[in-house]
């Protein structure tokens, strides 16, 4: 019975099913936050997650990966962030209901009242620091810091993985070249985070938990954080084995797993498959369709969206801020778009100019 369930989960697990499934769960959660944070639904979610985890721990391979010392923080993080996402959304939904009824948010009822920092705040800080210390000391006593064989530049482990907090970036390498996954996208993540308060500046909705009042920013942020960051870390850490091949959660990491390399470039699809001729020898001619598509992606949707779906945002923030916002959004969405192109059409590069290390 247990083995059958594991086999079924492994057979079903793939980057496609995990991402599509997660995005569906995400969409349901963001569409029905009130229903999803009720006691019963959240209890069912928590029990299902815990049950899967407990069931997984009975499996030797699963246990081996999840309890690997450096992976323990990721597991802890999943629980912590799962809880606090639920907590924040619950508070937000509560406040939204109050606002809908014409009452001020909870925070407002206490905002004009002041308390002495000593002892009230310092007491809270002390207790929290105390529990944190106890937790860290217990963690340190029961789990030894890993130490492998001495460094040997001639033997590279398979798979070689970056520290866990960068595994989202390493996972992006599946879909993008290093200059995008390792340099461009991280830069845009940092710039995007920095730019956030200069784009979303409506102070009427600051200082309290709310979803209805700040739906757009919260949806974007949660999508970026949970799907494009945390989920990529989970896949990169737990589900990527030797040669960075994908393995199900209960699948043994087989070094000899053979995965067909069937990915092809856009130029090959266009010139060889559709036009039935060889690739042009001139790289510019060869990649012209891809370059046009990329230029189109960054030029046309912003204008169209400014006049349709994003009209309100455009009018609210003005052309400069809208421009920054839309470029950041398109950069962010480029990752899931490239993923789906890869899964759906085996597309390797939209623009492939290996002559200049310029592949998109």
């Amino acid at each position, binding site marked *: 019975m247990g083995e059958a369930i594991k086999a079924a989960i492994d057979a079903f697990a793939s980057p496609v099913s995990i991402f599509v499934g997660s995005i569906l769960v995400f969409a349901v959660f963001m569409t029905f936050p009130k229903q999803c944070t009720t006691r019963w639904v959240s209890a069912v979610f928590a029990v299902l997650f815990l049950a899967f985890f407990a069931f997984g721990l009975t499996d030797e391979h699963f246990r081996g990966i999840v309890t690997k010392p450096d992976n323990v923080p990721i597991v802890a993080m999943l629980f912590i962030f799962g809880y606090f996402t639920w907590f924040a959304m619950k508070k937000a939904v509560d406040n939204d209901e109050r606002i809908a009824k014409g009452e001020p948010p909870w925070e407002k009822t206490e905002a*004009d009242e002041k*308390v002495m920092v000593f002892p009230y*705040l310092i007491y809270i800080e002390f207790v929290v620091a105390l529990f944190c210390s106890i937790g860290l000391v217990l963690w340190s006593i029961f789990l030894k810091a890993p*130490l492998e064989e001495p460094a040997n530049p001639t033997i590279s482990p398979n798979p070689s993985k970056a520290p866990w907090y960068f595994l989202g*970036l390493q996972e992006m390498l599946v879909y993008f070249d290093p200059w995008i996954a390792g340099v461009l996208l991280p830069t845009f993540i940092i710039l995007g985070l920095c730019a956030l*308060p200069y784009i979303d500046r409506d102070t009427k909705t600051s200082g*309290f938990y709310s979803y209805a009042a700040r739906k757009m920013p919260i949806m974007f942020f949660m999508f970026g954080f949970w799907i494009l960051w945390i989920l990529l870390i989970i896949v990169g850490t737990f589900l990527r084995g030797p040669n960075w091949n994908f393995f199900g959660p209960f699948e043994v990491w087989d070094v000899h797993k053979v995965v067909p390399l069937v990915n092809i470039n856009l130029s090959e699809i266009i010139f060889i498959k559709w036009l039935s001729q060889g690739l042009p020898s001139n790289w510019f001619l060869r990649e012209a369709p891809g370059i046009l598509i990329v230029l189109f992606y960054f030029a046309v949707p912003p204008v169209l969206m400014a006049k349709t779906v994003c009209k309100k945002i455009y009018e609210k923030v003005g052309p400069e801020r809208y421009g920054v916002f839309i470029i950041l959004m398109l950069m962010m969405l480029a990752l899931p778009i490239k993923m789906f192109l890869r899964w759906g059409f085996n597309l390797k590069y939209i623009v492939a100019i290996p002559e200049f290390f310029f592949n998109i």
Partner: protein
Amino acid sequence: MGENQDKEEPKKKSSLNFLSRIKLPKFSWKDFRLKTQVGKSMFRHGYSDDEKDRAMTVLTNVFFHLHPVRVRKSGARFGFTWCAGGLTFFIFLTLVVSGIMLMFYYRPTVEYAYNDIIALREHVPFGIMRELHRWGAHAMIITVWLHMFRVFMTGSYKPPREFNWVIGVILLVLTLLLSFTGYLLPWDQLAIWAITVGTNMARATPFLGHEGPGAALLALGDIQLIHSGSDVRFALLGGRFVGEAALLRFYILHCVAIPVAAVILMAVHFWRIRKDGGISAPL
């Protein structure tokens, strides 16, 4: 009850009974604080629990005075802030202390680094400083993300706090870099290959990495300006691969350069919280 008292009776008559007859001078913390010159010189506030004295407690203590004297009740709630930012700072302090302890035992050379870690494990019985440092580093990353998540969810990045949010983003990046540079120091297979994978990305930096797009354009005639011995990865590692120079660079970045930058930015970050109006609240 009666029986228990009977049983305790003989105890008082035991040979240790003389101890109770010794008159030790009674130590009173309160008297020490309020009546001795030493106590009065340490603490500049009284001992009563009125508001004035509590205000003085915060104002005259360098550690407490990061706080204002009074805060909004909504902002003092654990449910609002989750204490994530304060916890991040607390873990940072833990890491500074445990890190200094580790520096006594560790030499950043290819020859000694790994053996020093082994020695640390073998020679310090029940030692948990390395564990505390490693797990603390992971915990700090989690709390710093949690802090960002909370600030985002409450919309606290909005004006007038936008610049402090930017500083926070830089601090978050520094936290990741601190953890990343520390990852190399044990000099085991895990360390060297994780850093190799991480720094390989720098090869592909546009224009500045020798495998990055545009790097080939930076040339004087036939002479390539950007090659594997002059690109940004070389600057980071002090060589073409993760070796002796990289270990020393990462050690100095980890123990001196990044912590100094982080501390300065933390000072600005904390100071700006108050200058920007304290923990956010609805207008």
